[in-house]
């Protein structure tokens, strides 16, 4: 076999192994890998290992999987299974088993469509998510598609042309225009700073105590991620999981299912402080939260150390533009932020709102744009 064919064959076979192990390997990368093999040769294990790593991996997180796949491949054992992604304990679909009687009521109630739908929407707007029936949840999901999140505007370094006769001279356009007037810059052009929406970072608590709400809120988060580019989403449980990519599918069912696959600690406990710490270390303080509107969706029940939570909130507050804490329990009239975690976090929170119903989420959208 000519060496090129050998490289191609190895590259394709190994790519298949990696895909089988759950890595996303585009075809272009396998071609590059084959070229890389041609360059380093096949004699030394280290060379082949790094050639693959450099050409086929795109995040350090995939390193472990790659290592295992490579070991197996190099040793000639090609049977690899994807790491057991534990089936999420909660099915994310919104048709969880609820009283069937509700469904029947629904079908009898629905009469002339327009009016009833409208009033239904009105009623739904103020009802607590926890009290939703399955049909109502489905309705709310549809309504959330219309909810548009936009971060507060800030001045950008980019400039845009303006028709006003002030601001900074826009020389590029002035030169162009002066060609029209025989070289005399009579018609001067100006530019003004443009404005950009701030990044929005959503941290959604997916612990057991939030279960009644996280189903609805996650859909809200998904609508936000799909709605515009500068939204980042994380699930907070006993650990932190970034779910922006999973949620960016336009099909809500597919997106929520993908997120559920990714989040391994669904409906478990919460360690808010540790989760926030991880967020700050790995993403937030390094840049993602800088100047951003950070929204925490949580009831503030925390099994971890409240001091850690307070400290991490302080750290976050130092880089974020604003921190909005959405606590569904706040809607209860007698609510007081007694949960130790909540009490520790509150001093660093700019806006503390309810978020238990559609109306409250609309308020949230308004607060974020403020």
């Amino acid at each position, binding site marked *: 076999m000519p060496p090129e064919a050998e490289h191609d064959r190895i590259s394709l076979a190994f790519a298949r192994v990696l895909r089988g192990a759950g890595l996303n390997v585009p075809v272009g990368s396998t071609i590059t890998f084959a*070229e890389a093999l041609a360059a380093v040769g096949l004699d030394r294990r280290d060379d082949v290992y790094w050639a693959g790593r*450099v050409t086929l991996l795109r995040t350090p997180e995939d390193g472990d999987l790659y290592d295992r796949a490579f070991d197996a491949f190099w040793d000639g054992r090609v049977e690899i299974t994807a790491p057991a992604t534990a089936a999420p304990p909660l099915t994310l679909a919104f048709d969880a088993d609820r009283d069937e009687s509700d469904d029947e009521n629904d079908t009898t109630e629905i009469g002339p469509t327009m009016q009833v739908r409208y009033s239904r929407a009105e009623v739904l707007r103020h009802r607590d998510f926890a009290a939703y029936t399955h049909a109502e949840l489905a309705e709310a999901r549809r309504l959330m598609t219309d909810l548009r999140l936009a971060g507060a505007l800030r001045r950008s370094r*980019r400039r845009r042309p303006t028709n006003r006769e002030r601001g900074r001279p826009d020389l590029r356009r002035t030169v162009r225009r002066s*060609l029209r007037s*025989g*070289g005399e810059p009579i018609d001067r052009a100006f530019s003004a700073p443009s404005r950009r929406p701030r990044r929005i970072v959503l941290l959604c608590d997916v612990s057991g105590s939030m279960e009644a709400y996280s189903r609805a809120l996650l859909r809200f988060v998904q609508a936000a991620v799909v709605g515009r*580019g500068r939204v980042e989403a994380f699930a907070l449980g006993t650990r932190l999981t970034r779910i922006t*990519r999973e949620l960016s599918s336009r099909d809500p069912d597919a997106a929520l299912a993908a997120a559920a696959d990714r989040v391994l600690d669904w409906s478990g406990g919460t360690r808010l402080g540790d989760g926030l710490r991880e967020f700050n270390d790995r993403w937030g303080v390094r840049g993602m939260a800088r100047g951003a509107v950070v929204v925490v969706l949580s009831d503030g029940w925390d099994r971890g150390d409240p001091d850690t939570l307070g400290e991490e909130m302080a750290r976050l507050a130092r880089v974020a533009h604003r921190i909005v804490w959405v606590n569904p329990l706040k809607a209860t009239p007698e609510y007081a932020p007694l949960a130790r975690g909540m009490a520790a976090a509150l001093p660093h929170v700019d806006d503390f709102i309810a978020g238990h119903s559609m109306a409250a989420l609309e308020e949230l959208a308004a607060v974020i744009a403020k």
Partner: protein
Amino acid sequence: MTDVKNVDEVREALAAHDYLADEGLATAIFLALRLERPLLLEGEAGVGKTEVAKVLARWTGGELIRLQCYEGIDAAQAVYEWDYSRQLLHLRASEAGGGPIDEDELYSERFLVRRPLLRAIAHTGAQPPVLLVDEVDRADDEFEAFLLEILSDYAITVPELGTFRAETPPIVVVTSNRTRDVHDALKRRCLYHWIGHPDFERELAILRVRAPGVREELARQVAGAVEALRDLDLYKPPGVAETIDWAQAVVALGSTTLDAATVEVTLGTVLKYREDQERARSHGLEQLLNAVERPERAS
């Protein structure tokens, strides 16, 4: 530079220019040179990502062209711009001279201001330049798309002038601190390498090379203490750059060994967060120094 023969040759050449690369990084650089692909380097701040481009420039003799990315960077700052004031002056002059205005002349190379990307593509030197696109994660998505286009065919089109195409493609190093994910399309175009913190022996070797004024004993102490600090669960574990700074700071203070008092006064060169310093202190600075003993005994 496509004539390097193997990975070891790359490692030796880098070492000869004071950069100690491990097997992974050396392979990545070797492949980037051989396959003429951009190299995307990610890693914590201070692990030597930017340094890679600098050492490549020193080694190959190519010019180092650096493009520092920032929020809102656009084509006018990254690729080219026209020299508007000179264009206006030129217009006035030709008007005063009574001559006709030649638009082609106005948009000729004479008035073109070349920014880093265009300079890297339109270079004419014998050696291809080293293009460093630093902290690409700070720029926005639009700019990334733009960069991808240029890195795909190493060509830039200026509508008024035509297309510039690199005769030999520049060596491209793109770095990211990973404050956000770089777009997949750009990653696919590049070879990818994550630079981690070096282990004790390599850090020691780096200290010997980069801080030659530091005595062996002190270098061992500093490398050991830094290794201990990295285990402390800090906000910002010190990188290699901090290790070098620290060793040099101790030397500058006239100390030849690291003791608790010296650590106390120089802690600010390695730990840049108040909370981290407190954590190190509550852990015990003596403790750090005890950790220092370990690798020495081991050797």
